[in-house]
């Protein structure tokens, strides 16, 4: 990769990280399309790289939340064990899919997430309207 691309990656991470933190959403939903569209990564590599960013981020986040007493372990532990099973199944299925098919499935997933965020935007605007 050229130096300009490396700098761009760090800057995109900066933007995505700020937005994700401010909205309380994960970064993966931004990392995957950025890598796939702007950097022309294969869909599979975009997803694998996104996971490699999410893992350390989530570890840091867990430490912070655990210290603040916001992790309910009796629920978190079965969730995590089941999450490993689901994660392996999901990732194995992703590997069997053709790159262009996986990309289109991801596009549908993004539109569903966009609909959810649009609903939240409308709710926020209404809340402001009623408080004015």
């Amino acid at each position: 990769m050229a130096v300009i691309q490396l700098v761009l990656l760090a800057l995109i991470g900066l933007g995505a990280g700020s937005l994700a933190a401010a909205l309380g959403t994960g970064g993966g939903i931004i990392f995957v399309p950025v890598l796939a569209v702007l950097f022309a990564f294969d869909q599979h590599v975009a997803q694998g790289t996104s996971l490699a960013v999410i893992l350390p981020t989530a570890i840091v986040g867990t430490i912070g939340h655990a210290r603040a007493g916001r992790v309910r372990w009796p629920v978190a532990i079965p969730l995590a064990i089941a999450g490993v099973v689901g994660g392996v199944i999901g990732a194995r299925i992703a590997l069997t899919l053709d790159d262009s098919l996986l990309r289109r499935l991801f596009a549908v997933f993004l539109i569903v997430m966009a609909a959810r965020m649009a609903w939240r935007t409308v709710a926020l605007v209404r809340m402001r309207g009623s408080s004015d």
Partner: protein
Amino acid sequence: MVRTFIAASIGVTAGFIGGLFGVGGGVVVVPALVMLLRFSQYEAAGTSIATIVAVSAAALAVLAGNGDVDWLAALLLFAGAGTGAFLATRWLDRVPEHVLAGAFTLLLVVAGVRLWL
């Protein structure tokens, strides 16, 4: 017992979505904990992040085993995202949340359409 079963069901679903799409699975866990187990938003966020560690580690192991990870790109994104998360608490507070949510919606639509084409 019932709660453990519900938690396990949420975990499998979140893991599946997270593994299939290379995201953490928080999109499934947070609303499910709030709706099904009556968690507060704060506890849902905290508990969900612990699940994301498990989901992303499991899915990453599968994809990395297939050579589908660009470690240099991941390192740079991580460095940028960590700094961004820190800065967000300082300057994004001044931007109204509905503007951020609206901008994010638009970003997702554009990315979704572009990926489909």
